[in-house]
């Protein structure tokens, strides 16, 4: 009886973790949450010098934060998505960091619309999008649509 | 006949002529499995509720008694029994089945000895010739009424006790000399309600110990006996804590007795490795152990005179929630081999 009970628990947990790890393609994006990926910023817009510079500038700005250790930046047609990871011990102040960073970036680039998130999901999606963009068949239009989806996801905060 | 303040002496020595004991799966794994007449391997006993299963336990025990005694329901004059469930429905419903004139009694876990004392008294005074008396309890039915649903993961403290699934019934008969090698009831002491102010429903043994002590002392005083008269003094369901506490209370009151002689039904029925915390409890506990194991031992000659002190905690889930303490009672019946 004891054994039956115990194996029931084991099977349940096994199922749980089994589901969690299915699909073992080791693309960079799949490990994005476990490892520090530090992707270089991408620009969906016309890859003008200005845009690239700006993306790099944002990246540098973020690297000045000692609380942040990993950031993905995507510059779209209208929006800039900034997803980053906060060092665990600073997660208590996550909301404050987010506000602070947003203010700073908006001050530096007043003409741009920023979407800032420390959410793992947003980071993951950002890295996934960057991965897709490496594929030359992936059109800019599609990429921008995907970016809008991510931004929408970030806004529905319940 | 009344003797002393609260005791009866049965001069005609009514006979416990036959017994029937039923139990559930947990009891089947226990120490006394061999002393049960019927053991079920499922708590539901093929019924669709625990209360109905409880009724079946009682019915089967009664049927066993009748079969062993070779009697019909019509030969029995009264049925004196009770259980723990609200309005003692399982017992009343089995009285509906067997159609024997019925006294429903409630003394919580002391019901078994309350019934035996009353039955012996009635027979001793010619009020009846054959009476079936006993009591039963069902673990899950009691659990869901007094505590939580059976599947609820509440942690029971080490003071808690495990309600027995089982029933023990006996035929008490006028002593007409035809029943040889059958134990007889000699005297009984009816206890008074004792409340020492304990409020923890997970520590029944501690609450009931003073009641058991009170009744034992009254018994010795009324009948002018001491502990050496008995081969065994057995309490109903005090468990480990209650047994140790009442033993100290008795010692403090000047009773000298070997601790081996002072046993508890709640500690006899299960094996040490069964997860019952402090011991067994429930109105079926003292009934099943006495009418099964202890009477068998007496017939084998291990004991000649025993005093059975069934203890009951007279609480309800409501009284506990309303902040009342736990009043307790104990009834003692002395049983001897002729």
């Amino acid at each position: 009886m004891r054994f039956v009970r115990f194996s029931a628990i084991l099977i349940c947990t096994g199922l749980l973790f089994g589901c969690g790890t299915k699909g073992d393609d080791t693309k960079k994006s799949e490990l994005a949450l476990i490892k520090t990926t530090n992707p270089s910023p991408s620009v969906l817009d016309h890859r003008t010098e200005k845009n690239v510079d700006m993306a790099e500038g944002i990246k540098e700005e973020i690297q000045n934060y000692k609380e942040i250790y990993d950031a993905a930046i995507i510059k779209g047609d209208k929006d800039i998505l900034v997803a980053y990871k906060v060092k665990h011990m600073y997660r208590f102040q996550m909301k404050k960091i987010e506000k602070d960073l947003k203010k700073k970036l908006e001050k530096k680039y007043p003409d741009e619309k920023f979407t800032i998130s420390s959410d793992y999901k947003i980071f993951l999606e950002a890295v996934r999008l960057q991965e897709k963009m490496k594929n030359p068949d992936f059109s800019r239009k599609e990429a921008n649509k995907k970016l809008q989806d991510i931004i929408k996801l970030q806004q529905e905060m319940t | 006949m009344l003797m002393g303040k609260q005791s009866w002496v049965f001069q005609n020595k009514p006979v416990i002529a036959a017994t029937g004991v039923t139990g559930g799966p947990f009891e089947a794994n226990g120490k006394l499995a061999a002393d049960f007449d019927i053991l079920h391997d499922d708590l539901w006993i093929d019924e669709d509720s625990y209360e109905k299963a409880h009724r079946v336990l009682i019915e089967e025990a009664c049927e066993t008694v009748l079969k062993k005694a070779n009697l019909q329901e019509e030969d029995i004059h009264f049925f004196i029994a009770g259980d723990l469930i609200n309005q003692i429905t399982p017992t009343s419903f089995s009285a509906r089945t067997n159609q024997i004139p019925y006294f429903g009694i409630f003394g919580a876990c002391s019901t078994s000895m309350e019934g035996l004392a009353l039955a012996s008294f009635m027979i001793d005074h010619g009020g009846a010739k054959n009476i079936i008396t006993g009591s039963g309890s069902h673990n899950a039915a009691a659990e869901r009424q007094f505590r939580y649903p059976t599947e609820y993961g509440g942690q029971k403290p080490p003071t808690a006790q495990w309600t027995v699934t089982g029933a023990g019934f006996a035929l008490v008969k006028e002593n007409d000399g035809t029943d040889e090698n059958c134990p007889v009831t000699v005297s009984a002491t009816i206890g008074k309600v004792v409340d020492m102010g304990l409020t923890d429903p997970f520590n029944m043994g501690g609450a009931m110990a003073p009641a058991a002590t009170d009744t034992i002392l009254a018994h010795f005083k009324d009948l002018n006996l001491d502990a050496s008269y008995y081969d065994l003094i057995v309490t109903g369901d005090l468990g480990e804590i209650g047994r140790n506490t009442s033993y100290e209370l008795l010692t403090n009151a000047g009773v000298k007795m070997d601790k081996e002689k002072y046993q508890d039904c709640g500690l006899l029925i299960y094996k040490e490795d069964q997860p019952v915390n402090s011991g067994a409890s429930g109105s079926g506990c003292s009934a099943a152990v006495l009418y099964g194991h202890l009477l068998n031992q007496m017939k084998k000659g291990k004991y000649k005179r025993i005093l059975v002190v069934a203890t009951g905690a007279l609480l309800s889930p409501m009284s506990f929630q309303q902040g009342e303490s736990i009043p307790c009672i104990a009834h003692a019946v002395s049983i001897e081999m002729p």
Partner: protein
Amino acid sequence: MSSKQKKKTPEQQKYDILQKKHETKRPVLKNCLRAFLVGGIICTIGQAITYFYIYFFNFTEQTAGNPTVATMVFLAMLLTGFGVYDHIGQYGGAGSAVPVTGFSNAVVSAAIEHRTEGLVLGVGGNIFKLAGSVIVFGVFAAFVVALIKTILINWGVL
């Protein structure tokens, strides 16, 4: 507790002391260790489920809480139904009662226990027999807290 103590007669108090001597003490330290272990494991499983939803479905860290809770409730229902959860509860104590699985266990155990009294009066009437007080006090406390906070914000104190 002290007011109850006062009501006791001297005789009862004396007995209380004597009885306490024989009462098996609750193994507080052992219970706490087990509660820590079981509670920790349940929360870790919850975390794994959260990441599962983040990885494979469109949930952010913020929104993944809802499906996670629902999944944990479901798993606890299975464990309760198969008669495992009450054994976990006896081992883990608060470790299995405090997580939302314990809430689920309280609801499900009451529901299946009262199935014998019918679906409407039994299951419907008793399903919140144990968990009801949690909802009542949660809602009332939340009401008071939110009311005070809203008033303070309106007054400009906060």
